[in-house]
């Protein structure tokens, strides 16, 4: 790691400065520092404060961008796609039903290779109406060609938003990226955030250099009819980009950690003892809550760890195979479901660990915003200790 003098003087990061920001503010401030040029956005709870902050930043001149107050999420994604196709860096934010309503365009942005960044404030899906967190909205875009990364706290959300542009716009990746935070638990709860500076972000994040764009001096046509052979090739190409993204996300995380001293892990974050009886697997704030639970249990003589999935797409299959052998059992706590089958995280683990004999246990917890505290996670871990595999 470089010296703090380097960090402070060259990157102008002031580590004594701490803001008390909600997750929404943390994302909005990072998005503003990333200098998006086109933002098209539509309000929806709990992501609205992100777009309010961006519209204010545009109006008061802090951010030189076009802000379009569109008439729907479908139009929001369409608007940023237009901006991205014209070669602009683009950003928007949404949640839940808003994401579902923009889904046609979400797939288009992914399959169409438009490196848009979205702040996705995770919220459960209706009916029944619920404004609180779970991950079902994020799972709904699993196969849309988007990189999906999950933050566990407001600081990570702040840091990830800047990193997301760098990953998405990387020419070896060139895919849109969703930065996920848990609705209300992070989006509306204020916590300590060390803010990045404009100087740092300008150095860390090069300006957007599109591989292709709409340019009247060199006209191209997008969205043409694609015959079967070409179509299959395009999807293969998409998959290759996802595989390359694994290294790019890891490298960008590492570079960021070296510069700032804030290391959030690679595609996953491993917490606790090197080898343990049980690894608790979760995403977002549930993983941070699991850290509390395992600390408490380990104090009482148990031996438990946490594997936090940061990148859900691409899924860190190889990393899971590497770390899983350190554990006797895996306990997945999933905040979403895939009805008629195993939960989305369980499916990923069973795929990643195919051919091994590590037992996997799953609990669906915290859907529809149901609060999960560390003592409940401790109780589940105790149950798994007792279960015969």
């Amino acid at each position, binding site marked *: 790691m470089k010296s703090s003098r380097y960090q402070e003087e060259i990157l102008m990061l002031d580590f004594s400065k701490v803001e008390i920001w909600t997750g929404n503010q943390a994302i909005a401030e990072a998005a503003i520092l990333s200098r998006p040029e086109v933002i098209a956005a539509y*309000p929806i709870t709990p992501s609205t404060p992100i777009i309010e902050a961006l519209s204010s930043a545009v*109006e008061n001149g802090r951010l030189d961008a076009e802000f379009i107050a569109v008439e*729907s999420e479908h139009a929001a994604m369409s608007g940023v796609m237009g901006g991205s196709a014209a070669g602009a860096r683009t950003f928007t934010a949404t949640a839940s039903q808003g994401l579902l309503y923009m889904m046609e365009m979400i797939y288009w942005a992914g399959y169409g290779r438009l490196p848009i960044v979205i702040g996705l404030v995770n919220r459960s899906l209706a009916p029944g109406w619920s404004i609180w967190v779970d991950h079902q909205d994020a799972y709904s875009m699993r196969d849309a060609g988007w990189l999906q990364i999950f933050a566990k706290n407001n600081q990570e959300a702040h840091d990830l938003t800047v990193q997301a542009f760098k990953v998405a716009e990387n020419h070896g990746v060139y895919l849109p990226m969703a930065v996920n935070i848990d609705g209300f638990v992070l989006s509306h709860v204020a916590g300590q955030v060390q803010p990045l500076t404009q100087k740092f972000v300008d150095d860390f994040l090069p300006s957007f250099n599109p591989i292709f764009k709409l340019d009247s001096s060199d006209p191209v046509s997008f969205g043409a009819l694609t015959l079967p052979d070409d179509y299959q090739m395009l999807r293969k190409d998409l998959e290759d980009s996802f595989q390359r993204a694994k290294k790019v996300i890891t490298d960008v995380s590492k570079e960021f950690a070296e510069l700032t001293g804030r290391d959030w892990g690679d595609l996953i974050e491993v917490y606790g003892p090197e080898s343990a009886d049980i690894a608790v697997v979760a995403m977002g704030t549930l993983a941070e809550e699991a850290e509390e639970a395992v600390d408490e249990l380990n104090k009482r003589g148990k031996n438990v760890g946490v594997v936090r999935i940061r990148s859900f797409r691409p899924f860190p299959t190889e990393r899971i195979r590497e770390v899983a052998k350190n554990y006797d059992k895996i306990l997945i706590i999933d905040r979403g479901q895939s009805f008629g089958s195993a939960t989305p995280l369980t499916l990923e683990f069973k795929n990643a660990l195919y051919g091994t004999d590590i037992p996997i246990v799953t609990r669906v917890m915290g859907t529809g915003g149901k609060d999960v505290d560390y003592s409940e996670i401790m109780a589940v871990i105790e149950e798994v200790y007792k279960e015969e595999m």
Partner: protein
Amino acid sequence: MKPPITVERHPRDKLLRVDRLPHIWCPGCGLGKVISAYSKAIDNSGIERNKHVVVSGIGCSGRASGYLDLDSYHTTHGRPIAFATGLKLANPELQVTVISGDGDLSTIGGNHLIHAARRNINLNVILVNNFIYGMTGGQASATTPYGAKTSTTTKGNYDHPFNLPFLMRAAGATHIARWTVLHHVQLQESIEKAFQHDGFSFVEALSPCPKGFGKKNSFRNAIDTMHYFEQRSELEENPELTQLEIDMDPKSDVIVGEFFAEEKMPYFDSKDRFFHYIGGHQA
């Protein structure tokens, strides 16, 4: 100071799910007046209560379907008219009313508003226009006046708003009225007229949103918008529809009234006649 008057029962209670009260609407909100006018209109309609159905979308007004003790459906954002169309087709005997806001019906759901009007299907749409997205905290919608401040147009809105009566006339609506929530009796009578009207009815109810719209603009106190409606409302029976844009400027008039009504073949008749004409199957 006199103690506040409290009553155990409100005259409208019989049409409310009182177990869902107190409601979530802010002090000074106009939605209660709309619900009151609608429920009074139901009383006066002579149509049995179990034939009335209310459909709402997303936003503060979306709660209407939750508070009214009728068959009701709280749909997704912008879709209540599309949903109500299916409902009406499945059971034409029902008196189907959509109560939702400007953000829901004219912005994210604007497409369904114009297409239901085009079909002249026998629905009653009560669009509660408070000029912003209220529930998410006061962002600009398609009816936010030019220059108005909202949380997404902090220096003022540079987009032009819809003139909804004009839009509805162009799209084919056959009954068009507008009142403020202060015009309680007139609003109620227009809703009754909508029940009677055979075709697409559009009743716009201008409503204060003290928290989301008023305080950022010229109406600091909850009562100020009501005073404005009181002082500047002008009744016009046959107005020039192109002149009905609302700018919520304290110096501008608010044109209200029963603007337009015509008899035009409604959806079901149109369908029957068409199939009769081509000699084919009649649904």
